[in-house]
């Protein structure tokens, strides 16, 4: 059975992915900040079929603890076959434009913390000569836009970071997948107006990620239609792009 570590395990998308693995009888190691929410998620996954569920409570922006955390996951499960990094925040773009401290905090949560975790997870998987490492990026990282370029730049940083890590670990048989969800109806986006067909449920996105983590594509757009949409957006000449209100 698979041994799966999930960081940011109480997020809606992470829960949906974890359910897919639990139903297959996987062993799970879950990391999140809030103990009550984490315990509720762990209990759910036990009933849903997970062979074992271990948890660790920590603030993942404290990167100093990452080496020990990854080590703990490895020891508890006797290896890590697959890992998902799912924590993140969608901060207030306007506040970040006015105050660099807010902006840096957004970069810290969404880029520095995942990059730190990937360093240790990547080294572990390289040493064991197998593994599937996935991190949740965003379509916002494909091209900077006025409405959310701070969040987007952190996710765009993940794009290049995972690209390089994939290049490095490919020889060791380790897959590195950047997941790029579009609009997902989760607590993170609760304040946003919905109703357009572009919105997807966490269950749908979670099922896509669960499937992809076994195959290990370089980039997973979920739902799939974001791939052609983002291709078009990336290819738009700057002169045209500048006139768009996005």
């Amino acid at each position, binding site marked *: 059975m698979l041994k799966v570590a999930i960081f940011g395990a109480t997020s809606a998308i992470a829960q949906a992915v974890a359910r897919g693995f639990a139903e297959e009888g996987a062993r799970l190691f879950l990391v*999140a900040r809030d103990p009550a929410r984490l315990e509720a998620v762990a209990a759910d996954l036990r009933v849903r079929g997970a062979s074992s569920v271990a948890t660790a409570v920590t603030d993942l922006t404290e990167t100093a603890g990452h080496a020990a955390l990854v080590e703990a996951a490895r020891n508890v499960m006797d290896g890590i076959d697959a890992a998902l990094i799912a924590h993140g925040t969608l901060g207030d773009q306007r506040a970040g434009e006015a105050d660099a401290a807010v902006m840096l905090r957004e970069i810290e949560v969404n880029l520095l913390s995942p990059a730190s975790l990937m360093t240790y997870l990547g080294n572990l998987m390289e040493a064991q000569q197998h593994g599937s490492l996935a991190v949740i990026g965003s379509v916002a990282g494909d091209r900077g836009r006025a409405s959310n370029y701070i969040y987007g730049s952190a996710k765009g940083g993940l794009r290049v970071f995972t690209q390089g890590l994939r290049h490095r670990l490919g020889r060791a048989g380790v897959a590195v997948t950047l997941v790029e969800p579009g609009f997902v109806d989760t607590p993170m986006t609760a304040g946003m107006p919905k109703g357009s067909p572009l919105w997807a449920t966490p269950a749908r996105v979670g099922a896509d990620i669960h499937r992809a983590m076994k195959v290990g594509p370089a980039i997973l757009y979920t739902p799939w239609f974001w791939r052609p949409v983002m291709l078009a957006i990336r290819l738009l000449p700057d002169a045209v792009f500048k006139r768009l209100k996005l």
Partner: protein
Amino acid sequence: MSVDRPRMTRRVPLSWGRAHRAIHRVVRPAFPVDASAALASAGPLLPYGMGRSYGDSCLNPGGTLIETQGLDRWIRFDQEAGIIEVEAGVTLADILARLHASALPARHWFLPVTPGTKFVTVGGAIANDVHGKNHHSAGCFGSHLLSLRLLRSDGTVRICSPDENPDLFAATIGGIGLTGLILSAVLQLKPVPSLWMEVEDIRYHSLDAFYALSAESADWEYTVAWVDCLASGTDLGRGIFTRARHAATDRAPPPPRLETDLSIPIDAPCFMLNGWTVGAFNALYWHRAPAMPKRRIGSYEPVFYPLDAIRGWNRLYGKAGFYQYQCVVPQGNAGAAVPALLRAVAAGRDASFLAVLKKLGNRPSPGMLSFPMPGVTLALDLPNRGVRTHELLNLLDQITAEAGGRIYPAKDGRVSARDFQRGFPAWRDFARHMDPHFSSSFWRRVSAPVIEDRTGC
């Protein structure tokens, strides 16, 4: 880094009949610990699960809906005792999937009671005290509820069971979401010999034949009849009687039905369902059933959830939506009232290809406002054609009320306060247990003061 406070958004949530449209504030707590913050939203408040109630009992325009779909975690599953504890937003579909996956050759658990769709939440099943095709033997959903946790707007969590806060327990079962937010529930499952069903469909010609079939089907746990409600005269009440029971077989559990791709993605044009098309469908459907009963073994899904196979089937009724009407009349008066109801529907020549007749049993309902009573229940769909539809529904209300019956709040979007209050004499007692910050469109209508316009009523 999860968000700590659920954020509010504005939407036009729909009930299943799609006939009511109004903007609502909506909050969706992601975890039970987030729920008390959600209950601090501007009132009045009302929980909202899968939106499978047909009328306005799940709507609250001007107030805030507390969506429970984020509260969808299992808490425990005692596989020895068949006891499950789940958060209120877990759906019956989710429970069935788990029962499938955990079934052992010698041990199968099943829902003790299930309504006609599996896409309802446990919270919604409690709040409407739903019943199913086994009401005559098993009673309502609430009859199998061991306990629940109820969050009130004052921030307290009340544990309710037959022994602890029994009055609040009885008010919450069938309490249409008005006593507070159900956070979680403990439910007793039912052991069954297998997940296969033994089913018989029997074409019958008259209401008398329906009663005779109901009476002679005592060893069939599930019974229901589809009625051709456009048939009249000597054909009045003709239909197809379906009876089913869990089959004793060693076969491996049937594969759960895959997520269907068959769906109605858009509103159908309003002329699609009319007296002619539905009349033709009904006649064909009735004649297609074999004249001699045929027994078959099959999965439970088509038996309990035939319409779940078509996602969004409610859009067949077009943009104006539809009304479902379900009433129950007491056994003693059913002999006159049921034909009167069917004659009124047939005379209206208004489309209803989903009409269902069932004899309810004597097991007392656990909730103060539970719908079932010993007698006969009739349910049918009517496309929303404005005044004409309302006139027919008012006539049905009148027949029901005069027979001492009542309508089902889960299906209703227009019953008068007078007819509701006559049908549910316990409503004043119930109101004392409501959460003071909870209300619904339905409740504001049916709890309005009634001025009696007839003497002797």
